[in-house]
């Protein structure tokens, strides 16, 4: 019985489930008189059974499922590296599991981008066929979207949120472990798509092509639906954790700003992720069950898919960027050694993005043929979202203003978030505006804009947080010089690559196409070369992280002198986070406020109240620093 609860147990049970599902499908079809073999149906049912088998085998059965039948559950305790390869409830282990998994996926998908740029360096076809290009482009898209959705939320959200609010773990630790272990089947399915014919539809999977294309589309749909489950259950867990697991004294006005951003994000993930899953499930029904949601011949409507898809996938970009903003503000405040400016406005900005985010989706569809009367409202609503975003920028710039900036690697990355996202935001205006969007739709301008917001915003924030939390996670310090080399290399490479990319977009160069007019060759060659430079910058990062993790100098508990709770415990923290339970008495960002502390531990005397009222508007007093 103890074999169940390991990766090998999970693989064995998932294979058994897969073949059982296929067999049952064939049996039932034979019994009711159909042709027993329907390959796509067999894949779908086999995957569902295989997924259940995988989860049960990896440890859900022994730690959770036995309870449903009134049996005793048992939880193995393992130390060392083995704890990362099991159904582990510890949020810190899960956070690192997410981070390592998605770092690998990030590098793989980045490598795919290099292949695309190699093909696009010259016009016409050189190293890739059109089908290979489509497959690589689609895989790059969906893998990077997965990284953007899960690396920061699953990685830093899981790792840092319980520590920051002074909890011993997430609200539902077993559910948390479940969300992570849903990811490996997703990765396996996506990596199998090239051998099943290769994806053709891009990550957006628009019908009618996705209904009629090869069978890799089925794997893609199953993978993304499963991944959606991760996102939804993770969001649910974060909301409950943040509402119920805060330490005594951790009022809403004293929550670290990253926790606030995760709160807004979690609602978006909980309420919108269904859109993608429902849309893809409809495609599966069209393909497998012969329905006609999107078959125009039968009376279906492909436009329905675009509405449902963007109903999720526009909020998805806020799922990606809002925690990135949160991390950037968090880090900027700690390294500017100043109270976070306009804390309450920043919180209002996050909640505003959360509220408006679900009402702007059709700005992706200005050229789709949807009714014209929808154009105006969606244009106005989309541009209105710059108001809450502006509040976040207000907080960031106000904190930097007159601050004594300590330009470590995390701070450089955090400042770059603000710089890059400003450019991404400005180019967004042209895409939100109907007249300009009609021209720019589906060109490299969109690619440049999107990469500026998500890579320049969120991925830079992810690297900021990777360096920021590295000493906390590993107990060792990274190499600051190499970190700075990585930053400047990546920052320059990124900005040249994607800033130049606006130009062929304005010239009308179509995205997602392996070829382009000859006249655009010089600029594409430049983009390709700088893209390779950008890709090479991650080699510095890989070397620095691996080397520092193994033999870096031992880090202090609080190398940054930060005030928030996660830095008041040991590096790395013990199993239940705090040796003594914390209590919160002051604002997290009152740097320079005399006698103010954020958290105290229970056998210490509580200091007298700080001079500034906790959570005062505009970040409280900044005097005395």
């Amino acid at each position, binding site marked *: 019985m103890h074999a169940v609860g390991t990766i090998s147990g999970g693989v064995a049970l998932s294979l058994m489930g897969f073949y059982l599902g296929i067999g049952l499908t064939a049996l039932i079809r034979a019994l009711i008189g159909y042709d027993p073999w329907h390959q796509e149906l067999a894949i779908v049912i086999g995957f569902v059974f295989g997924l259940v088998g995988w989860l049960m085998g990896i440890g859900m059965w022994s730690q959770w499922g036995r309870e*449903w*039948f*009134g049996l005793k559950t048992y939880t193995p305790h393992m130390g060392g590296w083995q704890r990362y390869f099991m159904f582990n409830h510890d949020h810190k282990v899960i956070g690192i599991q997410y981070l390592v998994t998605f770092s690998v996926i990030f590098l793989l998908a980045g490598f795919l981008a290099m292949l695309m740029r190699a093909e696009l360096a010259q016009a016409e076809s050189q190293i890739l066929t059109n089908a290979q290009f489509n497959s690589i482009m689609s895989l790059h898209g969906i893998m990077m979207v997965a990284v953007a959705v899960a690396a920061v939320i699953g990685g830093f959200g899981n790792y840092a949120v319980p520590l920051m*609010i*002074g*909890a*011993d*773990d997430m*609200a*539902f*630790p077993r559910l948390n472990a479940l969300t992570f272990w849903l990811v490996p089947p997703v990765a396996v399915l996506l990596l199998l798509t090239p051998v099943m014919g290769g994806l053709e539809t891009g990550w957006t999977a628009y019908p009618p092509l996705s209904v009629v294309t090869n069978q890799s589309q089925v794997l893609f749909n199953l993978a993304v639906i499963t991944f959606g489950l991760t996102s*939804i259950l993770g969001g*649910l*867990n974060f*909301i*409950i954790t943040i*509402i*119920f*697991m*805060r*330490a*005594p*004294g951790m*009022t809403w006005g004293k929550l670290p700003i990253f926790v606030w951003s995760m709160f807004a994000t979690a609602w978006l993930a*909980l*309420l*919108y*992720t*269904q*859109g993608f*899953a*429902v849309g893809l499930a*409809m495609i599966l*029904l069209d393909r497998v*069950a*012969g*329905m*006609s*949601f999107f*078959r125009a011949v*039968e*009376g*279906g*409507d492909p436009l*329905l898919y675009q*509405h*449902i898809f963007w*109903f999720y996938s526009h909020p998805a970009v806020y799922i990606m960027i809002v925690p990135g903003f949160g991390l950037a503000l968090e880090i900027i405040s700690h390294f500017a050694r100043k109270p976070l400016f306009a804390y309450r406005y920043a919180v209002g900005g996050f909640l505003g993005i959360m509220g408006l985010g679900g009402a702007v989706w059709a700005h992706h569809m200005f050229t789709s043929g949807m009714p014209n009367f929808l154009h105006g409202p969606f244009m106005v609503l989309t541009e209105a979202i710059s108001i809450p975003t502006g509040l976040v920028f207000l907080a960031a710039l106000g904190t930097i203003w007159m601050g004594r900036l300590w330009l470590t690697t995390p701070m450089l990355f955090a400042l770059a978030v603000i710089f890059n996202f400003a450019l991404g935001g400005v180019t967004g205006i042209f895409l939100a505006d109907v007249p300009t969007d009609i021209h720019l739709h589906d060109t490299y301008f969109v690619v440049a804009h999107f990469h500026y917001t998500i890579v320049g915003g969120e991925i830079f924030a992810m690297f900021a947080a990777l360096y920021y939390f590295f000493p906390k996670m590993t107990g060792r310090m990274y190499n600051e010089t190499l970190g700075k080399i990585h930053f400047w290399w990546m920052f320059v490479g990124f900005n040249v690559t994607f800033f130049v990319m606006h130009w062929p977009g304005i010239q009308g160069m179509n995205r997602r196409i392996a070829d382009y007019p000859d006249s655009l060759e010089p600029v594409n060659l430049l983009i390709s070369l700088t893209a390779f430079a950008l890709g090479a910058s991650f080699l510095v990062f890989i070397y620095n992280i691996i080397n520092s993790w193994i033999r870096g100098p031992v880090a202090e508990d609080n190398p940054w002198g930060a005030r928030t709770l996660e830095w008041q415990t040991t590096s790395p923290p013990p199993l239940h986070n705090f040796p003594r*339970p914390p209590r919160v008495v002051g604002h997290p960002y009152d740097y320079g406020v005399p006698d103010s502390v954020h958290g105290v531990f229970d056998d210490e005397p509580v200091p007298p109240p700080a001079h500034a009222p906790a959570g005062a508007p505009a970040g409280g007093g900044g005097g005395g620093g």
Partner: protein
Amino acid sequence: MAITFPETHATHDDAARMLAMRRAGLWLFFFSETILFGLLLAARFFLTGIEAEPLDQEVGLAITVILLLSSVTAFSGEVAIRKGRQKAASWWFVATIVLGFLFFAGVAYEWSIAHFSRENPFGTVFFAMTGTHALHVLSGLVMFLLLIPHVIKGKFTPTNYWAVQAVVMYWHFVDVVWVIFYPALYLVQGVD
């Protein structure tokens, strides 16, 4: 609203806090599911407007009544647990399972006599909506089946019966979804 617990430290050993968290978590799950069903409902009106193929109104009314009754029996079972009557509760849950199964069979019957195919747009949304809902009914039935042995063994006390509450709440939720789906599929008819 007791949404904060300022006086105590947040741990998983605190039964009252755990119950509050689980309850809130279940509600969030319902919100999330609402979007799923809501999108299907939206697809129904997007694709076919208020047009509908004729359905067997008697079957529709019968299964709706059956499902509503099953919510009553499920609730009665929960009340019985709260009053400490384990045996009565298990019979109420058996009744719920029977009614739920009857509903399921009713949907299957409606599918078998449908004169329209699933390639027709109304057929597409009809089969997708009733199918998704029926899958939820089926999962509710499985949960009740898992619950009954615990009830018979007397695992639940009048103060500690979260699993019962959760399953019954889920059952009510599935019922409410049908209360919306039923008029959207059976009662909304196109104007000639």
